[in-house]
């Protein structure tokens, strides 16, 4: 739970811009590992649960919340990198460092370091996004909810939350390349997270159903 507070209010912990950069990295790194270790704890807890339920060995050992966490994290990582590539190729005006825009962090956030930190921050935020998807659409095993989810996220970030990003022009003043590229990345990102989660949910449901038939 500590990690979630860190996640939501990073400026609280990083309020002094004069901090040396390495300390920030350290903090972010700690944050990252904390999430990982949390998920591992959950994993072992769940394995114990599975043994109690006497599920035969050989079924996938990953529990659903862990799967959602990992999928969200990698979804953010992969599509953050894609976003960075699009930024390098000048398809889009803002890179993954956009995630750092609301906070005053010093000039480094404009450089490639900022972009990479941005990607990591997006990966962490994506864990929350993945759980949000799970809350909303987990039972629909299709690609559509994922696509819609991605499009919805784009509207929220670029439309509603626009004033939070000082470097970003308002939606109607953005160039068409940025709009289309960012929307496409969001849609595919939503598809990645959404379809993965729905599919895995369906798989685990099927498995459970099969086991209940057998026993």
């Amino acid at each position, binding site marked *: 739970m500590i990690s979630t507070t860190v996640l939501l209010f990073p400026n609280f912990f990083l309020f002094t811009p004069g901090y040396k950069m390495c300390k920030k990295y350290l903090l972010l790194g700690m944050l990252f590992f904390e999430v990982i270790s949390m998920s591992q704890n959950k994993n072992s807890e769940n394995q114990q649960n599975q043994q109690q339920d006497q599920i035969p*060995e*050989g*079924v*996938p050992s990953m529990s659903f919340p862990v799967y959602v966490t*990992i*999928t969200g994290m*990698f*979804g953010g990582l992969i599509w953050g990198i894609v976003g960075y590539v*699009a930024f*390098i*190729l*000048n*398809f889009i005006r803002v890179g993954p460092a956009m995630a750092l825009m609301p906070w005053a962090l010093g000039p480094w956030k404009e450089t490639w370091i900022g972009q990479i930190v941005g990607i990591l921050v997006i990966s962490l935020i994506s864990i929350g996004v993945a759980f949000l998807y799970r809350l909303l659409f987990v039972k629909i095993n299709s*690609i559509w909810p994922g*696509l819609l989810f991605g499009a919805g996220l784009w509207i929220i970030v670029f439309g509603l939350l626009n004033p939070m990003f000082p470097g970003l022009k308002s939606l109607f003043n953005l160039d*068409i*390349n940025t709009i*289309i*590229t960012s929307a*496409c990345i969001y*849609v*595919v990102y939503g*598809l*990645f997270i959404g*379809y*993965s989660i729905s*599919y*895995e949910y369906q798989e685990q449901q099927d498995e459970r159903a099969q086991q209940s038939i057998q026993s």
Partner: protein
Amino acid sequence: MSAEKSEEKDQKQPISPKIRENEKIISNRVGIGSSFDVDVRRLSIQGKEVQFYIVNGLTDTPIAIELLKELMFLDAVEVEQFDVKKQIQNRLTHVQVEFVDNIDDAIKQMLSGLTFLLIDGESEAIVIDVRQYPGRGPEEPDTEKVVRGARDGYTENIIENTGLTRRRIRDERLRNEILQVGKRSKTDICISYIDGVADNDLVNIVKKELENIDIDGLTMADKVVEEYIVKQGYNPFPLVRYTERPDVAATHLFEGHVVVIVDASPSVIIFPTTFFHHVQHAEEYRQAPMIGTFLRWVRFLGMFFSLFILPLWLLFVMQPSLLPPDFDFIGLEESPTIPVFVQIMFGELGIELLRMAAIHTPSPLATALGLVAALLIGEIAIEVGVLSAEVILYVAIGAIGMFASPSYEMGITLKMIRVLLLVAVAAFKVPGIVIATTVMFILVAAIKTLNVPYLWPFLPFYPKALLDTLIRMSVPSKKRRPSIVNPRDVYKQSKA
């Protein structure tokens, strides 16, 4: 083999005890006398007439002669007994002897190369397997060569093919179920799987789809079967993996896949397959894991470049402002006389034409074709100014990347998509390429073959399995079978 659908059984013509009647019917139906390759040989044994029906192009003559000899010998030395049929059956020197009670089955067997004999007064025909199909021996397949490793490949003969598999899997639970498809061609199709490993549902789905094929003939063998089973439609991506290598097929059987062998085709079909099955190659598993990984990454990069480098380059030529500052050098040195897009299309079409020409050119003329290709089209096109040097370079990179993908079908698909991307770039620049790529990705992600998502394990995301496709794991470290085939026995190796 004699298993047939029940509704047809009612209409089958029984064998009459009167041999002349049978002869008349059979002669009429298969055209003995008008077709020269279908024949009947009459013998008199123990005072009873015996008729041998045979297709001479499909039978092994020495075996047939041996059978006839034995029967004549029987006629000469044995005392006449009450049951001539039993006497004859005793003397049939062959391992595979069956009885059928209707003319339809007998004819079907004969036309697949077996012989059947009718005995006067009996209402059963004896079918003997004396098949020998014209064909070649196992050779190394052209499309899947390896530097080290087995050099045998599947042939056109389904029996030999099952033998090649069986030689690698001596497991008693390996099942080779055969059935016949095609109303007129009656093509043999064999479903191979390992019982206890492969998912029963998967086997049943494949079997059901095969039984539902209602067509007169399957001359294009496995391709027809594929289109029926995976319902390809107008989707350009290859939905099944073909292989001509028995070791590859055996590996997939062990993993819990189902393999379908169609008679008269040297390539077998592996079900179910995903995109990533098309970018792996047997060679990777004949080298050290690290080397295998390296080869695989080179191949991934090659395919990726082949798909995107040309559209991106075209985009940068059309809109140089997009280039990152470090890559200013990309672009055209001189302003072209012909629009770059047209040049690229020329290049793409040219390479495709050359490829087609190379297939149809007889090998003595191949050198001449090479000269024409390299000198005339390459050199002179640049000198005249029809094509820019850069265009040739990037088109060539695209073409090489395509040839490097181990699946021929995947290579052509990538080429087609590249052309579509080029058109999108030429028409709409950045929005064109971004939207086209996104739509392509979504469409590919939406494909499911036999309930398996096409982009598995990337989408849906399974990190462990994805790592296995990105890195060639060492064999001892792979303890589990891939989950996507839903294997009944998850472990390949004992867990200890």
